[in-house]
């Protein structure tokens, strides 16, 4: 040992945090910062090169703080490494264009998907990786430990206790990573109250939070999961009927997650009608890992649903959820408690099935919603749509996926892709190579942004038929099964009719007539609700749709 060396200090992070907070102490009243001081607070708390989380969730956005961040002087603050579950606001990208930030790790980009694609390709944004949510949270505790977290709440008290309520979403995971690694947590709140007794409940303890500020306006929240039943097409209803018969009933799927498209909305609205006729109530689709989809209301009201755990909330559903505490997870104040980290875990380990749509599928069954310049990220889909290899508990649906004669009893999660063979504008869904491959090359991504890997996909459902991919005995057979349901796309036209016939005979591919589903039965009259208005009626007036969905 070299005794001339200074003994190592073991609390450098704590000292650094204290120094930063000391530098803004005269601007704070306890933990409370004045709105006008927010730039000074950020200059005090953030250093160039820091890892910073700007809470952009799927829905809730810490927009007051992210706008303040984007207005900083890049001469003083630059080269930030932003970590964001969702990049959903224009200012999230402005921090890169202005040179305040350089590197980005994220999961979902939603409305900014075109612009983010362009900025990645011209080198303005250096992307670490496009994660799935739970993967990004995981890295916050390993190799992406944040220095500063900018978060958002409905209410805060002066001690820093936060009420995040129905929109808790990612907040606990993001805040925990900083709060217990001597990072700094800055929270914006729509309203600041004096005492904890004035909060509906405490979602984040005050001791985890360093600075609070009252936002100039309530945080932005996006109704991402409202699908107007008016836009559900007969083809989607047809496919929903095939799904209910050929997958839900076939494998007795009780626990599940649905994607956010119209295909799965159609399934939700068919449960009380077509599903009821099949006698499936109580036998399938009882336990859900799902945001409070308005289109699930009829199924809940007619007794199909036992439980729903939510990633986030949905605008307009607050009162309905609060009035159904036996179904949803709610706090003692009555309002929903969402939690994306736990919900993603639940979707991975406890749900038997994920079913969702996509934009492109390649001959091996890999799928992606990344096309040309649109880099949307996939949020939770890569996690929900993959087999949980650590799973060790059996359910009938999961075990149904086990190979015949398997002595270990090892099942699989059902991962279902439900797509029409052509997208709008006659663009084939089935392609020889995913656009994601090109995008990865142009944007210098080490991993092509694939949403769901082909070998995780157990079922592929199109309007042409249902391929039970988990039954494939070889890669070649698997490809043939995919081609068999690819319709008249170039890939589908290469399918060999004799092979397809053999696959049908073996029950590896089923056509609608094999399932006893007829086009003429697939009418919109089968939907339990055909408009947003109907959903309001089903909810007994408890659902209050956002203005843009109203047609009365």
């Amino acid at each position, binding site marked *: 040992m070299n005794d001339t060396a200074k003994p190592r200090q073991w609390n450098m992070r704590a000292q650094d945090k204290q120094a930063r907070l000391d530098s803004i102490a005269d601007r704070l009243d306890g933990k409370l910062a004045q709105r006008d001081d927010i730039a000074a607070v950020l200059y005090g708390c953030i250093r160039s090169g820091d890892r910073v989380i700007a809470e952009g969730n799927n829905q809730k956005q810490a927009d007051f703080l992210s706008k303040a961040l984007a207005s900083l002087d890049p001469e003083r603050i630059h080269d930030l490494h932003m970590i964001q579950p969702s990049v959903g606001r224009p200012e999230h990208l402005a921090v890169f264009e202005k040179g305040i930030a350089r590197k980005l790790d994220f999961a979902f980009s939603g409305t900014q998907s075109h612009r983010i694609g362009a900025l990645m390709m011209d080198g303005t944004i250096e992307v670490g990786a496009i994660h799935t949510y739970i993967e990004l949270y995981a890295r916050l505790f390993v190799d992406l430990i944040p220095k500063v977290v900018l978060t958002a709440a409905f209410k805060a008290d002066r001690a820093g206790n936060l009420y995040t309520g129905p929109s808790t979403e990612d907040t606990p995971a993001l805040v925990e990573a900083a709060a217990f690694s001597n990072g700094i947590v800055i929270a914006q709140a729509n309203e600041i109250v004096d005492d904890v007794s004035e909060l509906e409940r405490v979602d984040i303890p005050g001791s985890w939070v360093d600075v609070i500020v009252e936002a100039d306006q309530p945080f932005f929240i996006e109704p991402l999961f409202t699908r107007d039943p*008016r836009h559900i097409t007969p083809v989607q209803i047809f496919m929903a009927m095939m799904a209910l018969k050929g997958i839900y009933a076939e494998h007795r799927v009780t626990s599940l997650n649905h994607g956010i498209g119209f295909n799965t909305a159609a399934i939700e609205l068919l449960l*009380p*009608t077509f599903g009821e006729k099949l006698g499936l109530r109580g036998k399938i689709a009882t336990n859900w890992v799902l945001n409070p989809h308005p289109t699930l209301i*009829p199924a809940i*009201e*007619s007794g199909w649903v036992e439980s729903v755990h939510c990633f986030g909330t949905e605008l307009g559903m607050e009162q309905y959820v609060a009035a159904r505490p036996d179904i949803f997870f709610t706090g003692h104040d009555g309002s929903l408690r969402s939690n994306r980290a736990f919900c993603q875990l639940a979707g991975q380990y406890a749900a038997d099935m994920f079913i969702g749509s996509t934009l492109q599928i390649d001959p091996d069954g890999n799928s992606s919603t990344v096309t040309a310049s649109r880099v949307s990220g996939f949020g939770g889909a890569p996690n929900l749509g993959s087999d949980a290899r650590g799973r060790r508990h059996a359910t009938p649906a999961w075990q149904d996926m086990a190979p015949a004669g398997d002595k270990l009893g090892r099942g699989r999660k059902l991962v279902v892709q439900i797509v029409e063979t052509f997208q709008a504008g006659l663009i084939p869904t089935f392609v020889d190579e995913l656009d994601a491959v090109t995008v990865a090359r142009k944007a210098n991504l080490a991993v092509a942004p694939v949403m769901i890997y082909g070998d995780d996909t157990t079922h592929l459902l199109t309007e042409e038929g249902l391929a039970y991919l988990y039954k494939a005995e070889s890669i070649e057979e698997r490809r043939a099964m995919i081609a068999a349901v690819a319709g008249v796309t170039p890939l589908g036209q290469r399918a060999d009719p004799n092979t397809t016939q053999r696959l049908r005979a073996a029950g590896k591919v089923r056509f609608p007539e094999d399932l006893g589903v007829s086009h003429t039965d697939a009418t*919109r*009259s089968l939907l*339990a*609700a*055909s*408009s947003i*208005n*109907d959903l309001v*009626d*089903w909810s007994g007036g408890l659902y209050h749709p956002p*203005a*843009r*969905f*109203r*047609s*009365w």
Partner: protein
Amino acid sequence: MNTSELLQRQSFVELSARARVAQLLDGGSGRELLGPFERLTSPWLALQDIVTQSDDGVVISRGTVDGVDVVIAAIEPAFQGGSMGEVGGAKIAGALELAVEDAANGKPVVPVLLLETGGVRLQEANCGLAAIAEIHAAIVALRAWVPVVGVVTGPVGCFGGMSIAAGLCSHLIVTREARLGLNGPQVIEQEAGIEEFDSRDRPMIWSLLGGQQRHATGLVEDLCDDDVRAVRARIVEAVQSGDTAPARIENIQAFETLLAAIEPDVLAEADKVRAAFEQQANHAGAFS
């Protein structure tokens, strides 16, 4: 409404024109005139590379509703926005003119118009407008003998020249989702500016043009649920009533007074419009 009632409800808005007719007519009584197999298609759309429809988006059918002789003219909302072209317009006008002849010969046939239309088909311009004018004239002529029943349920609403046809009907039935107005929201926005009328502000649009507002201001007679049975029940009542010309149509003076009182530079709001109509109604007993 309980769960089983909700499940039994069948949306009228959802139905195609032909399915609407089938639901309204007494079973087995329907006979379609100039049906799709006559292949009377628009001569104009094809010239503009637009796919035609073999009934040109209009279904005409004779039959009975609860035993009353009717002719139903149903506009297909899913074809070209329910627009009135030369052929479709002429089918309606011709049907109404035959009904005038029948009525004059002592065989009253009650017309029921299912108006789901953005008005004239722009691709057919004057040909469509001429047909609409003929429809107006025939409705006025028919009212001397029989009630003329108009139904607007959505999803398109009833706009343009066909909104005048609706206004001429002796009995108008709407749902909450229906919209009724001379100019559609986009047209108003385009002409008057987004400050005057934001065509994406759905609650504002329905608050001014929607079925509830039109009913509250006495411009339509019936407001009913979007349910096939409910719509049919209202139509049965209307075709059986002998009332051919409600005060809404006759008292032009009252409308002129109301119009004169409107200040065009004040932004219209639903409550104020209702109050103005109410005041005028109390004044003149006009709108009931």
